[in-house]
């Protein structure tokens, strides 16, 4: 017979979650708003590009990934009122002007011959940066107080990893000459510099700051 009066701890021995997190409610809402803005811009662009790419497999993947990012935007949109932001559009903004410039440059290619540039912008620049920022957020926030955001980010990261792999494989399958490799690298470098200027998808501090202040020697 089980002794129902025998006490147990509220956290099982293997559950090492702790209360503090790096972000308060306000900072979390701000970041979630930035993420939502970016996911919207991304799904709009992927949808728009479908008609412009002649490669059938790429066309169908873009259509599929378009929905993934729309779903991410929807998840972030639903989280915002839970973070005390009732006018969700107020926080659905780019982190800074530089990230808006990045998105403008990433979505600029239209010509049917520019599939490599389209894919590189999304899968070699933007998605790696979203994975980095979402992972930082997921690991830095409190897994108790902010578990709803952690759960959302876990679902989204699963999509991002899968889409990143598919996108990278599409790029590799399209690079058939030195000239095409150069095109991909040139475009990647151009966009990476714009992302650097933005400081990441949520602005400076998107993935924290690993440096420490050095003590000055007298």
């Amino acid at each position, binding site marked *: 017979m089980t002794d129902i009066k025998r006490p147990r701890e509220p956290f099982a021995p293997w559950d090492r979650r702790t209360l503090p997190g790096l972000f308060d409610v306000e900072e979390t809402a701000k970041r979630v708003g930035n993420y939502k803005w970016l996911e*919207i811009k991304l*799904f*709009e*662009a*992927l*949808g*728009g*590009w*479908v*008609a*412009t*790419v*002649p*490669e*059938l497999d790429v*066309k*169908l*993947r*873009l*259509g*599929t990934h*378009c*929905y*993934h*990012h*729309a*779903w991410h*935007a*929807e998840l972030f*949109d639903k989280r915002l009122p839970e973070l005390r932001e009732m006018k969700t*559009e107020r926080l659905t903004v780019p982190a800074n002007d530089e990230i808006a410039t990045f998105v403008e440059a990433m*979505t*600029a*290619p*239209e010509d*049917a011959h520019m599939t490599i540039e389209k894919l590189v912008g999304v899968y070699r620049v933007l998605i790696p940066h979203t994975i980095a920022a979402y992972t930082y957020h997921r690991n830095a926030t409190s897994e108790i107080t902010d578990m709803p955001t952690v759960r959302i980010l876990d679902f989204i990261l699963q999509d991002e990893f899968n889409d990143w792999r598919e996108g990278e494989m599409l790029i590799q399958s399209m690079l058939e000459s030195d000239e095409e490799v150069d095109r991909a690298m040139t475009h990647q470098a151009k966009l990476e510099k714009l992302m650097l200027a933005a400081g990441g998808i949520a602005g400076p501090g998107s993935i924290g700051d690993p440096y420490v202040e050095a003590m000055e020697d007298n």
Partner: protein
Amino acid sequence: MRKIFPAEELARDARFIRQTNEQRLGDPRGARVAGGSSGDRLAKLTPELANGPDRARALMHGIFVGEIQALEGAGRTCWDFELDEEVPLALKLDMARQCWDEARHCEISVSLAEHMGTELGEFAENGLLYEAACNPDPVLRLTGVNRALEGLAIDVFNTMKEFGNLAGDPVLEFCEDWMLADEVTHVKMGSDWLRRLTANDKERLDKALEFQKIVDRLFSFNGFRGEDDDSPIQLTRRFRELAGFSDDEIDEIADMSREARVEAPS
């Protein structure tokens, strides 16, 4: 990337052959499939017809290219309109969902086409569906595409599902039933957004319904879709009701098809 991407610039590989509707109807391959001259009326699609399997193959190819254009159209609706100023986020989310569905339909229909012995490019493509998806008014675009064309897709898929059943092809029947479920959802999206976006704008509602009629008429093809027993494509009342069509609206489409059939060259 531009807003509004013209139909003549849709990106395709070398296998795709674009024709106007007039060219397509006059194409001798189409006439062969019809079983006579291009003006001949088509009988109801069944496996017993001498040209039944060929017609089914041609129809499946048509479904495939239609699905590509439906995917492209839904994608452009995600991009072409300014968020909140022109359309709400929920509408764009619906269109993104439709992109995923249409991408799966492309995968299904190209696999079914191969299953039925058809090669990509064996039949021509016309850009009519995507052209309806270029309307600059999102309400008219959704009405023309989601209610008129996706409505037609309901009828076509149901016909193909029945064809699969009659032909003893469980793969065809199974896949068509799944696509049919998605299409009812897409038509319902169109019906819901039409009502929501025109709730206080009777003039816009009337314009949208008029555009739907124009698209419906364009795709009537001599009344090949109707409620008569021998209509090549059967108008599917039950699924259209599920998708938000009123009895009057379904009656109107049936009447339009009947008139087109009477007016068609014999």
